């Protein structure tokens, strides 16, 4: 769920909804968003730009591999730049549901050792970005929210549903760091193109915008995603490239051995 979600953030989320008609509630819409085909595996390059409120930019480049195992998935990500973290690599085994914590290992070339990473809260920020572990999931854990369909509107020329999700309990709100989130979901492809988040004090906190949505290998993919923290002025821009879906990645790709070996461009 975790890292993989970020890597394929909105890049992989849909299949064109099968014949859909009639009224539906917020939960049904979110379930459709959740039930999209995002390919069985994926290779892509990703560039992260962390921009603070003064406009200082920190950039990272990485390449990632992902493969689905039924509802679980595995992924491996190699850092390509900056040079001081080059060859650092992250392996994630991502289990469906909250019963079992995800496994994560990081290989640090300076130490030449693989380190296990302790699991985090869903509301914790991820890898210095403005995304929390919850945000980088393809869709949030649907059963943790009360979903309400607010209505329909036109956003950037697309018909969208506006669905609001409120965490069900105060404990969840605290854990997630949100009191509310509003999803703008394109009706034609069941993909959200904007999300607004409110913090626990009820103030607008963050905004996620997905752009340059196109079909690659038959899968609708957003080439860019920007998460802006409205309160701190910090933002994270992700851009994706060189997508290759369904190339038939082997299980070996997601092993500790490959983590240490590092990425070798073909």
């Amino acid at each position, binding site marked *: 769920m975790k890292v993989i979600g970020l890597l394929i953030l909105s890049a992989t989320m849909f299949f064109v909804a099968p014949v859909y008609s009639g009224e539906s509630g917020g939960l049904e819409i979110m379930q459709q968003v959740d039930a999209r085909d995002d390919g069985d595996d994926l290779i892509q390059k990703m560039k992260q730009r962390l921009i*603070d409120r*003064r406009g*200082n930019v920190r950039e990272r480049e990485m390449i990632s591999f992902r493969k689905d195992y039924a509802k679980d998935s595995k992924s491996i990500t190699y850092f390509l730049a*900056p*040079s*001081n973290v080059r060859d650092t690599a992250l392996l994630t085994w991502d289990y469906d549901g909250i019963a079992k914590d995800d496994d994560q290992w990081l290989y*640090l*070339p300076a130490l030449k050792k693989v380190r296990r*990473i302790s699991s985090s809260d869903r509301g914790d920020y991820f890898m*210095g970005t403005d995304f929390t572990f919850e945000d980088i999931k393809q869709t949030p854990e649907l059963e943790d929210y009360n979903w309400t369909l607010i209505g329909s509107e036109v956003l950037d020329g697309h018909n969208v549903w506006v669905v609001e999700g409120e965490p069900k309990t105060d404990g969840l709100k605290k854990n997630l760091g949100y009191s509310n989130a509003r999803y703008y979901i394109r009706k034609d492809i069941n993909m959200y193109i904007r999300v607004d988040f409110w913090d626990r004090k009820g103030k607008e906190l963050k905004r996620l915008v997905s752009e340059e949505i196109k079909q690659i290998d038959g899968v609708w993919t957003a080439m860019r995603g920007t998460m802006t923290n409205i309160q701190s002025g910090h933002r994270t821009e992700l851009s994706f490239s060189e997508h290759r879906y369904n190339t038939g990645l082997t299980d070996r790709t997601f092993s500790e051995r490959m983590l240490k070996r590092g990425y070798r461009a073909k």
Partner: protein
Amino acid sequence: MKKLFNWVLTHPKSVLLVLVLATVLAVSQMRHIYIETDMDAMLPKHSDAYINKQVLEERFGSTDLVIVGIINDEKDGVYNTASLKLIQELTDWLADQPHFRTLALNDLLSLATIKDIRGSDAGLDVEKFMEDVPETQAQIDHLKQRMHEFGVYEDVIVSADGSGTIFAVRPMPDSRHQYAEIYDLMKAKVAELEARGGSERFYISGRPVIEGVFGVYMPAEMKRMQPIVMALLLVLLFLSFRTPRGVLLPIAVVLMAEIWTLGTMAALGAPIYTITTMLPILILAIGIADAVHFLSRERLLAHHQAYAHHKERMVEVMHELWKPMLMTTVTTGVGFLSMLASDLPPIRDFGMFAAIGIIYALLITMLLLPAALMLLPEKEKHAERKPLFSAYVEWLGVTVLKHPKRIMAFFGILLAVSVFGAMKLDVNASLVDQFKPGDPLRQADEMLNEHFSGTTSLDVMIDTGRENGLLEPEFLQHLIDLQDEIEKDPMVGDSSSIAEFLQTMNQALHADDPAWNRVPETSDMAAQYLLLYSFSGAPDDFETFMTGDYRQAHIRINMKTDETKVVAALLGRMQDKTDNWFPEDMGYKVEWAGTGFTVHRLSEMIIDGQIASLATSILAIFLLCWWMFKRLLIAAIAMIPVSLAVTVNYGMMGNIGIPLDIATALTGAMALGIGVDFAIHYLHRYHEESVAGNSYEDSVINTNRSVGHAILFNTFVVVGGFLVLLTAALYPQMKLGALIAATMVICYLATCYLFPVLLGLGKEKIRV
């Protein structure tokens, strides 16, 4: 001039109308008045302390945090389930308050938010020390042990003996106007928690709170002191005139002058600083003199029925008085204007608006009194009454002639003691010391400093000049070295930097072996540690210690005091170290900031400004006297009482141990400007007497008879007015009030006792 006076007297209604309109205009401006409590705003904008503070906030976030301390004197201190629950509750409450920015770890530090870094079987664990409130003794012991082993937060968040813990929370940006509200909010919450009867005691401090309290105290003090000073004036005026108009007219003059001054301040956008809160009192006490002179003279002439017509008499009064009044106003004004030699905006504003205020007072006296008297019905002839203190004044004239040696000896000893004291004069711009020792806020602050690392911030910003520069092992080691040096100072409670965290991570990644508690060996390693950390901790956990490009580092220092001496000594010692470890020619740039540094720069400017303004005022007033009396010798003599009084002022400060601060720094120039009036009045009269052919003895006695009363009245008003400041809630006001009052007494004594003796020196006596 006479034409002008005539015009005033023939158009009294128009004059009054103009005065009223001007007053209405001033009142309409007064809603723009605002109070400035930001200590950094007391620095000129070009000061490095001011600039660096802005840079610090821009790069690393504000370090001005609200601090709440919990102390539990029972055996286990705060390490018990009840206290820890309370800590969790207060943390959650703080996080929910809209007044605080609680985005990142460093926005809200408490035992319930800080994170532990430690090595685990295969990796690095970053988790809160207190994910849940520990219930069992074993869990509590574990928490205690982790806190001690991690070390970074020991004494900072939890006191070393475990007796107390603090919360540090960041107010929303640009919420300065809400600081007082925040303090009230915190007090109410703390009262609620204390009411539950636990053994925890709460203390609230931190710079936003201190400044918030200033913001509350200042207008409250102005409102409170105004009626006291007015009552004092009413009593003195009544004793002098015993008629409604004799009481009310001067009061109207000074009130109007006060309103005009405040209106002018508002219109010019000048804020109210702690010291400018004293302006109204000052204008009331000093401005009253002109009106009193005017009415006394008018009454004397009326009594003697020297002029048949009301109007002629008034013209004569105005004609007689405008020159001496202008002169005394100018000399007093010059004393105040000399404060413009200071770089500090509050002192500059104080000087400028005090000068403007007394000019207004003179102007209003010359317009309002004649116009009002023209409109009021002529009084019947007053019964001749001996002024109060006549016996004293008579006695004085004779006595001074009898004991010249004793008087000389008294002032000689006074001078010697004062010079001795003045050598010990100290400077202290401490913010906390502006509160009285008994003030709850100051006590809370002392308590927090006693138990924890300190409430005063001092910050070092080091620019490595290149991206990723702070990751270099050598640089990190020098950060540690500098921290070690800084922490050698007993008044430094703690310091922290990114280097400390990297050391801890290094150890955690080497099986928690303390031997690895050192900075990472390579720059790449440091970068990878930080990346690793970002998977477990929040990215902004370190935003207060370094910039995102890893170019600039910040060492945060907590000091237990903001006394100038301590900070200055520390800064002096660190200069060599930073020059050595972070040389400029290698691209490094070291900048200091924070409350400690602001205090340091304030102190320097107080001293520099003090010397400059004192020199300016002495010279300017001397030149004025020279011009007035046309003789160098007389001008020199005129300067003696005030110079003596000013020396005694500094001597008292040195001997009693009152340091120069932003308020007491005003005393010198102020005393000089006010006190020289006594000398001018005295010498003026003495001159008249000797010109009239009187002997030395007769001249002294007559002078005393004639101006002795007026000088005494002035002394009473000024001394009384400033003594009202003794009731002030803020220390600087109190000290300033006592000092000026004492200095004015000395000035009076030197004028009325020492002058005659000096004038009697030499066989020929000095001819004036």
